[in-house]
């Protein structure tokens, strides 16, 4: 395809790893997997990290703060040039979905292991993504713009209740109102318009259907950049706290064949419409009352929870990203919509779940992982690792696979109980709680399940102490 930095020599291609932590370790493994040489672009705080020791070379791009290192496209591009990189893998977060990095690399003729910049722009904000989804025939939440706040009741009936009033030019969740019936709508719409005018300089509103009891289900896609789409099943990521995923599983349990087909077909259509390049995720809400499916957004990157899909299907998504970026065959098979095994991932964070998930960075004096069948651990931890306070709190992902969901839940519970991490407080306690909870064992909890359930437990523990 395109010319690559090292294409003319016999030397292995260089992969610049533009990230840190467990995903840097993961990308380095994928680079080794395809015979490439991994070079790590690290902040000064990560210059001697475990990932740095695994890489062939480390390039220090800036000081510890992300605004002066990992979030600067020009520093990553400069590091890619210094490394002689053929491809840059951005991981997740940081610059992974920023068109600026992808564009800088395009100028330098260095491949970017992700979608084209125009794709990143097209799906980069919710309203643009919604338009793309609508055009591709993807089901979206019913929504309508309000022309006249005095005659809003008819619009509300057309969408159904409960619904949300949102400001067209709002953002960050501000000015959103939950409305349960026509009376509330008629009363609140004028207030909302006035506030939107004051806050955003424009009083335009729209109404959107709200699903109070929904699951978060997402579809793993992979596109060849020329319109071909592959679907690698789905994941349920409904165990969340404040929109942070805690536990993910593949496949999403208890979906009907029809609901699954709606999501997979819609995702395929979207990949084809965008001529999407590489790995991506299409996120949906599945209403547990109606089984209605609505599009949420596209994550145009590899995701934290990608290993559950890899283990379910026996594939290497990160290696496939690198291969495609290098102009090689990504070597991904066609797979059935439901894999023959269930895989569960537990995110182990340096947070104290008994104290409002307060971050608990520090030195990991000792760490031991379980072994045996179906267990994979993605981590940067090692004995003596100083967990830095500058970055996010993800320490490790414990991934467990078994022939059935019941067996996977039991195996994950047993594996979690065997983990030993000394020196910092972790979220392991919450995993043992969730994996033992009848609601989770039954499968299909909603995104609003964990928060109150965990708080209820905490209150009960407080009670029992008294």
């Amino acid at each position, binding site marked *: 395809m395109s010319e690559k930095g090292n294409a003319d020599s016999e030397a292995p291609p260089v992969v610049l790893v533009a990230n840190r932590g467990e995903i840097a370790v993961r990308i380095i493994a994928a680079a080794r997997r395809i015979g490439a040489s991994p070079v*790590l672009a690290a902040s000064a705080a990560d210059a*001697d990290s475990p990932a740095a*020791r695994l890489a062939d070379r*480390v390039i220090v791009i800036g000081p510890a703060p992300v605004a002066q290192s990992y979030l600067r496209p020009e520093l990553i591009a*400069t590091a890619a040039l210094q490394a002689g990189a053929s491809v840059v893998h951005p991981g997740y977060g940081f610059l992974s979905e920023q068109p600026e990095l992808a564009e800088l690399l395009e100028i330098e003729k260095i491949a970017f292991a992700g979608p084209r910049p125009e794709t990143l722009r097209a799906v980069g904000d919710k309203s643009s993504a919604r338009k793309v989804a609508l055009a591709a025939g993807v089901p979206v939440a019913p929504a309508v713009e309000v022309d006249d706040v005095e005659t809003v009741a008819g619009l509300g009936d057309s969408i159904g209740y409960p619904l949300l009033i949102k400001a067209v030019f709002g953002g960050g969740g501000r000015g959103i109102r939950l409305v349960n019936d026509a009376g509330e709508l008629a009363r609140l719409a004028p207030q909302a318009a006035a506030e939107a005018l004051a806050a955003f300089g424009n009083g335009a509103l729209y109404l959107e259907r709200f699903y109070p009891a929904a699951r978060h289900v997402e579809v793993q896609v992979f596109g060849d950049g020329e319109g071909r789409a592959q679907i690698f099943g789905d994941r349920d990521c409904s165990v969340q706290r404040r929109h942070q995923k805690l536990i993910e599983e593949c496949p999403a349990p208890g979906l009907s064949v029809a609901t699954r087909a709606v999501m997979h077909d819609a995702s395929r259509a979207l990949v084809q419409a965008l001529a999407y390049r590489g790995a991506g995720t299409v996120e949906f809400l599945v209403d547990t009352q109606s089984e209605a499916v609505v599009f949420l957004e596209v994550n145009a990157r590899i995701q934290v929870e990608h290993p559950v899909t890899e283990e379910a299907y026996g594939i290497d998504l990160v290696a496939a990203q690198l291969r495609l970026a290098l102009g090689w065959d990504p070597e991904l098979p066609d797979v059935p919509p439901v894999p023959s095994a269930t895989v569960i991932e537990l995110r182990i964070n340096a947070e104290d779940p008994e104290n409002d998930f307060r971050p608990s960075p520090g030195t990991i004096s000792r760490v031991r992982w379980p072994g045996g069948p179906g267990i994979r651990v993605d981590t940067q931890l090692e004995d003596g690792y100083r967990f830095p306070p500058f970055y996010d709190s993800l320490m490790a992902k414990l991934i467990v696979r078994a022939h059935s969901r019941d067996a996977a839940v039991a195996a994950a519970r047993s594996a979690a109980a065997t983990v030993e991490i000394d020196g910092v407080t972790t979220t392991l306690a919450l995993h043992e709680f969730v994996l033992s909870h009848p609601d989770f064992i039954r499968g299909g909890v909603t995104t609003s399940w964990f928060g109150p359930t965990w708080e209820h437990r905490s209150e009960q523990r407080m009670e029992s102490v008294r």
Partner: protein
Amino acid sequence: MTDDATPSWQHLLDLVAQLDSGSYDSASVTYGDVSVQLSRSGPLSAPVPSSASTTPATTSPKPSGTIIASPMIGVFYRCPSPGAPPFVEIGASVEPDTTIGIVEVMKMMNPVSAGVNGTLTSFLVRDHEQVEYGQALAVVAEASSQ
């Protein structure tokens, strides 16, 4: 005499006391079959990354003086433009805001200031050399009164 060939035990005690009053993080002394290793923190020898980490500050000989470190990754230039004279010559006096060179990142020029008063005694990287964040660029012998 053995006095010359091997240090007496008292010599060792003296050496330890000497080292203790110094500001060393770690020290290793070998004299014949006598070996002394001291460390103020961490293990006797820190693990060295297996990677070919390019942190020249630790590998190049460091002349005494104040190091001017690169504020970012990029390419170091001693001159404001091709053919122009350098910002500063070796041996010249510098003040804290004297520009001693430029680090270029994707066509953006970032001036590097001396940061201290003194005499620029040497450059540790060549003109047009790729540098990383924190890499030692030059050395300034600080003015004594400063």
